């Protein structure tokens, strides 16, 4: 049971933190249509987070709610992977973070929708439609920027250098994943193939032999997460026990 709760929280934290990050673009995007698109993805991710948190709260059955789980846990309790908490950087870095993660989610949710746990399976199935769109949209941006101008290509290379080190963790199972019967190691090949196809079209290299950072899934994060939670949780922390 505890593994299932932790795993559900891991899924929830991944989507909440990436949703929170993407929302920072709202009102500041490079062009109005894309401002709307990134905000839309943020909304989808927060919607997914809510479904997972609600389920985790039910499993815990200790009076937890979606909001207490999102707003009252500490940086060491959050279980999101390191990739999603990385700063937005420029549009290239945000697009790459989205693409790497959406691609991972795409294969993960495909597996999860057949899981024996029907609640997780149902959330995965419903979310997969959204993720398919996020993946297509971000792939198109990777290609556009990689195969755009000299500047955009060079910014993509910088983004890859910045973010690739956080992709290894996605496929290294932690206890709660194994105990919930999730085989994430098996997703790696399909994920990498998909990345290669898109990078190839974008004229971008797939890095090799990069040392991979880990720890997010077990609560050992980069220094960024503390600041994300500071902002996210401020009102709830300042006025404890209030309804909003």
């Amino acid at each position, binding site marked *: 049971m505890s593994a299932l709760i932790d795993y559900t929280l891991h899924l929830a934290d991944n989507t909440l933190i990436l949703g929170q990050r993407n929302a920072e673009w709202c009102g500041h995007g490079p062009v*109005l249509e894309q401002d709307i698109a990134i*905000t839309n993805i943020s909304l989808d991710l927060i919607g997914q987070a809510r479904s997972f948190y609600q389920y985790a709260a039910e499993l815990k059955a200790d009076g937890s709610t979606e909001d207490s789980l999102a707003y009252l846990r500490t940086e060491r309790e959050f279980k999101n992977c390191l990739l999603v908490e990385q700063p937005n950087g420029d549009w290239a870095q945000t697009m790459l973070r989205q693409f790497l993660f959406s691609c991972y989610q795409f294969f993960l949710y495909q597996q999860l929708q057949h899981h024996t746990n029907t609640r997780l399976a149902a959330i995965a199935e419903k979310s997969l439609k959204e993720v398919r769109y996020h993946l297509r949209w971000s792939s198109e941006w990777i290609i556009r920027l990689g195969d755009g101008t000299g500047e955009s290509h060079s910014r993509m290379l910088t983004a890859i250098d910045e973010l690739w080190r956080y992709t290894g963790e996605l496929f290294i199972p932690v206890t709660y994943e194994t105990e919930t019967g999730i085989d994430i190691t098996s997703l790696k090949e399909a994920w990498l193939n998909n990345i290669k196809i898109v990078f190839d079209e974008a004229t971008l290299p797939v890095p090799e032999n990069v040392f991979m950072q880990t720890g997010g899934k077990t609560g050992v994060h980069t220094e960024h997460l503390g600041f994300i939670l500071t902002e996210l949780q401020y009102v*709830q922390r300042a*006025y404890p026990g209030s309804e909003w």
Partner: protein
Amino acid sequence: MPVQDFEKIFQEKIDNEVKIEPKDWMPDAYRKTNLRQISQHAHSEIVGMLPEGNWIGRAPSLKRKAILLAKVQDEAGHGLYLYSAAETLGMSREEMINDLHSGKAKYSSIFNYPTLTWADIGAIGWLVDGAAIMNQVMLTRTSYGPYARAMVRICKEESFHQRQGFESLLVLSRGTKEQKEMCQDAINRWWWPALMMFGPKDAESTNSDQSMKWKIKRKTNDELRQNFVDMIAEQIKTLGMKLPDDKLKWNEERRHYDFGEINWNEFWQVVKGNGPCNKQRLDARRKAWENGEWVREAAAAHARKRAERQKDKAA
């Protein structure tokens, strides 16, 4: 046909409630006034994303965060329809955006006030969107077709936003002591700026007469402002809060609420650029545009490459 005849036909259409469409003949001043007003309206939607966007990261619950994100996104969508409507009058979106950034084009002054607490988000929904709706409902019947049609869509979403804002304040008004204070404080700060949204008094409004004749506007600034005061003075009773105006009082004879005098000095100062956030708002818009330049260039360059490859394939 002499210009006078065109003008006569044009005014007859207006008088007979026939919409003016992009390809119809129209007086230059009508085109200019509409272009100014619609682009200003579009800019207001876009700049208006900033004060509310300021609280997305700190929204106090996941539900409120999702509602706020969706609302700000709706505003971006309204900006899109309005820029498209304005483009039918012969100016590109990019030119309009440049005018905003250079300070030539204006946007609603209300967005030059800061959002200091979470309650400001509710107050904006209730008061600012509430004031905007007064104007926009009238504009669904404006004489320029594309503008009127854009307004129909926008009004549906705006009235939803207003209800959400009110509901958010209602929760605060029934909450803890701190929440009630936060709610009253936000109303105190947003009330007068919301009244200013209707513009100068009729006696001092330069564009009003011609706009009424051309049915760009159908109600005067003062009429709309009065309708707004009458509506809010009733709604606030449900919140159990007070409007910051000692002179606010029901006038049985007029069948309207009387209310105090707006600080017109403040109004003109904010219009001139001296509001608390004029600089920050324009800086944020310019920065987003400048930081996005390489992205827009890359997208255009890629599209060109793609088109060339298609051509090569076809050949």
